[in-house]
C-alpha cells in the first residue's frame, strides 16, 4: 500500500500544511514531527513561491518569510529527507507549477522519489494541463493530486476518474484562509466522486475549528488545514511546536469523533 493510501486506511485523515522554511528549515522539521506526534496522518509541505495566486494573506506571508531565509526547491528536498529519517508519514509537496517546471520535470520527480515524497499538489495545474507532467510523475511513483472546486460541476467525474492519491475538495470559492462558514455541499459532490472512483476525498480551504473538522469528517475522508496552522507559526515563531501539537491533537480528536 502507498503511504498516501495508508493515511486514509480505516480512519479519517487529518492533513496539516506548513510552508517549508517558515521560519527556518530546522523549525519546519520540528513542527512537522510535532504534528505527526499529535496524530497528523499526512503532511503537506509548501515549496515557497513568489506569487502564490491561490493563497490568502496568511500563507502569502509564510511564503515571503520562507523566501526571505533563502528557502529554495533544493532545501525543501533536504527537509523531506530529514523528515524521512524520523517518520514514515505521507508527505505531499504543495507548490505552483513554475518552480517544478524550472527544476525540470524529470529531475524534479526523480528527486522527489529519492527524498521520499509521495505526492504533489499544484493549484495552478488544472486537469487540462496535467499532461504536462503526469506521465513523468507516474514513472517515479509520485501522485499528482487533483483538486475539485465548488465550480467544477460537470468536471467532477472527469477529474475524479483520473485522480491519484487523494482528491483535494476545495470547500469554498476564493483563496486559502480561515473562514467562518464552510459552504461545500459534500452530499452533492461525494456521490459523484464515488460513482467513478474509490479515491479518498479530503476537504480543505477555510477549515480551522474542531467543530468544522468534525462536521466535515462525518462525510469526507479527510480534513486539510493550512492557514490555521500557519497562523500558529506566525504567532509563536520559533516556539510553535507545542501549540501546534495541542492544536493538531484537538483537530485529530474531533475528526476521530466523527
Amino acid at each position, binding site marked *: 500500500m502507498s503511504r498516501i493510501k495508508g493515511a486514509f486506511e480505516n480512519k479519517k485523515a487529518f492533513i496539516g500544511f506548513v510552508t517549508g522554511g517558515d521560519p527556518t528549515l530546522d523549525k519546519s522539521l520540528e513542527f512537522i514531527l510535532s504534528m505527526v506526534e499529535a496524530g497528523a496522518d499526512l503532511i503537506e509541505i509548501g515549496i515557497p513561491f513568489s506569487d502564490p495566486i491561490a493563497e490568502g494573506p496568511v500563507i502569502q506571508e509564510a511564503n515571503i518569510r520562507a523566501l526571505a531565509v533563502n528557502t529554495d526547491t533544493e532545501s525543501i528536498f533536504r527537509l523531506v529527507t530529514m523528515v524521512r529519517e524520523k517518520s514514515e508519514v505521507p508527505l505531499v509537496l504543495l507548490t505552483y507549477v513554475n518552480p517544478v*517546471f524550472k527544476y525540470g520535470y524529470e529531475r524534479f520527480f526523480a528527486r522527489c522519489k529519492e527524498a521520499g515524497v509521495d505526492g504533489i499538489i499544484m493549484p495552478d495545474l488544472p486537469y487540462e494541463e496535467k499532461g504536462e507532467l503526469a506521465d513523468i510523475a507516474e514513472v517515479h511513483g509520485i501522485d499528482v493530486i487533483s483538486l475539485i472546486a465548488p465550480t467544477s460541476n460537470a468536471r467532477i467525474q472527469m477529474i475524479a476518474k483520473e485522480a491519484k492519491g487523494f482528491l483535494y475538495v476545495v470547500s469554498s470559492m476564493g483563496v486559502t484562509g480561515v473562514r467562518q462558514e464552510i459552504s461545500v455541499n459534500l452530499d452533492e459532490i461525494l456521490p459523484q466522486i464515488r460513482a467513478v472512483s474509490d479515491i479518498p476525498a479530503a476537504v480543505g480551504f477555510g477549515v480551522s475549528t474542531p467543530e468544522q473538522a468534525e462536521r466535515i469528517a462525518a462525510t469526507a475522508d479527510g480534513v486539510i488545514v493550512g492557514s490555521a496552522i500557519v497562523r500558529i507559526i506566525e504567532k509563536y515563531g520559533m516556539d510553535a511546536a507545542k501549540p501546534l501539537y495541542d492544536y493538531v491533537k484537538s483537530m485529530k480528536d474531533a475528526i476521530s469523533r466523527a
Partner: protein
Amino acid sequence: MDQEKKGRYGIHGGQYVPETLMNELIILEQQYEHFKKDPEFIKEFEFLLKEYAGRPSLLYYAEKMTKDLGGAKIYLKREDLNHTGAHKINNVLGQVLLAKKMGKTRVIAETGAGQHGVATATAAALLGLECEIFMGKEDTERQSLNVYRMELLGAKVHSVTSGTQTLKDAVNEAMREWTTRVDDTHYVLGSVMGPHPFPMIVRDFQSVISEEAREQILEKEGKLPSAVLACVGGGSNAIGAFYHFIPDKEVALIGCEAAGHGVHTEKNAATIANGSLGIFHGMKSYFCQNEDGQIAPVYSISAGLDYPGIGPEHANLHDTGRATYVPVTDEEAVCAFEYLARTEGIICAIESAHAVAYAQKLAPTMKKDDIMIICLSGRGDKDVAAIARYRGRKIDE
C-alpha cells in the same frame, strides 16, 4: 488553426489556473465564440469604437521626423488620440460589452500605470456595470492622478500591498478576487496574457490597429511598410499593430521591450532579452525569473511595461523569428519622449516612447523609399511629471 483551439501558440499559452476558474474560462470561450459572430454584438461594438472611442485612429505621416532622421518614411498610428488616450479602450469596450451580454453585472481589472484601469472604469460607467480595479500600492502613488480618474468614473480602486506592489501583484490580486466571485463578475484582463482565451480575445479586439493601419498605408502609399514598431510589456498594442501584417513576410515586426537601466543591470523588464521559459499567470511563455522559478522583481520607468512576462503569441513570434524584440533603456525612451514632443509636437506615453527610441536608431539605416509604422499606443500627459522628475525638475501633478 488547431493550435489556437487549445489556446496554444507554438509551445506557449495554455490554461494554468486554479480549478475554481476553469469552468468560467470554458464558458468565456464559448460565449466569446458565439458573440464574435453575432451581428448585433458586432454592430454595437463597431458603433462604440467609431462613435465613442473615435476610431479609426489616424495614420499620420511624421514628415519632420522623417526628414530629420534621413531614412525611412515614418508614419505614426495614433492610438493616443482614442478616447481615454490609449489603445486600451479597444479591448476594454469589447470585453465589457461581452461581459454585459454574458449577464455579468460587475467587472474587475488590474492596472499598472492606470491606463487600463481608467479604460475599464470608463467602459463600465458607459455600459452600466459595477467596477473594481486592482493597482499596486507603488503604482497608486506614482499615478495618483489616474487613481482619482478611476474614482471619478465610479470605480473602486484597491491598493495592492502584496509582493512588489506593482502590476504583477495587481494581476495576482485580481485573479484571487475572480476566484472568490466568478458568478456575476468578469475579469477584464488588460493585455494579451493570462490563460486562454484571454490572449486570443484581447488580440482580436486590438487587431483593429493593424487592420486599419494596413488599409491606411496601402491607400496613402500603395505599398506595405518595411517595418512596424511597437512597445511591448504584456504586448497588447504590439500584437494589435502586428497582427494583420503577420502574413506579409516582407514586413519586419519589431517589439521594443523596457530595458530600464540596461539589460545587463538588475533593474529592467526586458523579458525576451533576459527571461526564460516558464509558467505563470495562467500561461507558458517567457518570464524574468531566477533559477528556482521565482518571478523576478522587474523595473521600468514606464509602469505600463513594468511586467515580468510577455504574451504567449509574442513568445511564439520570437521563437519562429517572425518578430524581433529589442531592448530600449529608460534614458533612450525619455530622450525619444522629448524628441517626439519637439519634432512633431506630440507628447506620447513613455511606453510608446520606447518604440520611438528604436525608430530613431533604425530609420536612418533604412532606404528613403522604405516605410515604417510606429504604433503610438498612448498619450503622455500621465508621464509629464515623472519625466520632469527624471530630468531633476520637481513639478506638481
